């Protein structure tokens, strides 16, 4: 006697079996028993205990997510800052004169230093990976602070008051200081990794 194949049994389970298979299964106790076994196996598979990860992978995911977040923000802030700096230059340069020339020189110096540090940082951002959570947290914190300053600088692009000029220089200098710290953190990490 010809019995149902496994294909037939699975088709019966799915309600897609041929007319022959359906009729045969109704009459054949062996095939009905086989079909029951399929149901039981599937039920047992579903009832297998959940396997839990042996180690906590969240710190690795978190660190990588921080790096990704910072990288995205830096890409944005680099472009935004470049545009803002150009605009600030156009708006403020004609206003500097007399006592303002000292501020102008300081502003130019801070912007040059900032650009140099930015270039140096690109060299350390080789693989985007961070060795330890502590380093990642420090880098993220510094990037956050730089991003805040960048946002402030970008927001000042339309400000014309002379009183803001000194503050602008101060912000750029703060940015330079933070970038130095960031460069330091990244270079220590890079030396440690041996890149």
């Amino acid at each position: 006697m010809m019995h149902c194949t496994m294909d037939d049994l699975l088709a019966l389970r799915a309600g897609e079996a041929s007319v022959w298979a359906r009729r045969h299964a109704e009459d054949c106790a062996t095939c009905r028993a086989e079909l029951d076994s399929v149901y039981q196996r599937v039920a047992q598979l579903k009832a297998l205990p959940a396997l839990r990860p042996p180690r906590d992978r969240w710190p690795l995911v978190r660190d990588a997510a921080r790096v990704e977040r910072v990288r995205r923000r830096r890409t944005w802030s680099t472009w935004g800052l470049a545009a803002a700096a150009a605009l600030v230059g156009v708006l403020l340069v004609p206003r500097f004169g007399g006592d303002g020339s000292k501020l102008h020189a300081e502003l130019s110096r801070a912007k040059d230093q900032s650009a140099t540090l930015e270039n140096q940082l690109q060299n350390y951002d080789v693989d985007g990976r961070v060795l330890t959570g502590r380093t990642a947290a420090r880098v993220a914190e510094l990037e956050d602070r730089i991003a805040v300053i960048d946002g402030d600088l970008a927001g000042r692009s339309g400000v014309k008051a002379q009183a803001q000029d000194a503050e602008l220089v101060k912000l750029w200098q703060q940015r330079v200081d933070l970038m130095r710290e960031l460069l330091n953190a990244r270079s220590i990490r890079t030396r440690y990794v041996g890149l």
Partner: protein
Amino acid sequence: MTVALAVPDVLVARAQAGDEAALEALFRAFETPVYNLARRMLRNAEDAEDVLQETFLEVVKSIRDYRGEGYLWGWIRRIAATKALMRIRREQLRATEPLGEELGKPGMHVGANIDLERAFEQLTDTSRAVVWLHDVEGYTHEEIGELMGKSVSFSKSQLARAHARLRGMLGEGEGARA
């Protein structure tokens, strides 16, 4: 295993805004189902851990693209299944899967879960993945075919072969023919 499907919308919204605590809450909610899925599909526990990590890196990167259609678990599960299948494909490129399998090892008896679990582990990577996705996770053959880049009939035949092998390994009745 049963997965709690309901995740508060506010938690998803916070995660989409980049809130680290919300992202961790999502990780904690789904780490076990994701790992379990990967571990059942893959032979190696370390590979499953890697899939867990890769899945959540993808979740963190793409959570903004999740539009709330369907359950979040369905979205995450698809990412995890894709990652696990990629790993299987990569392994298959490195080494051809053995054609023969260990049939009916001593000590495998009908009924007990531990035996079924051991028999399941003896299946080829592809068969195991198809069985788990279809029978446990509830994917259709169309979905499995799409995930694997194969046809619907490939998925169906893998499932039938896998069940025939499980049946043989578990020493069940002789009525059916594979």
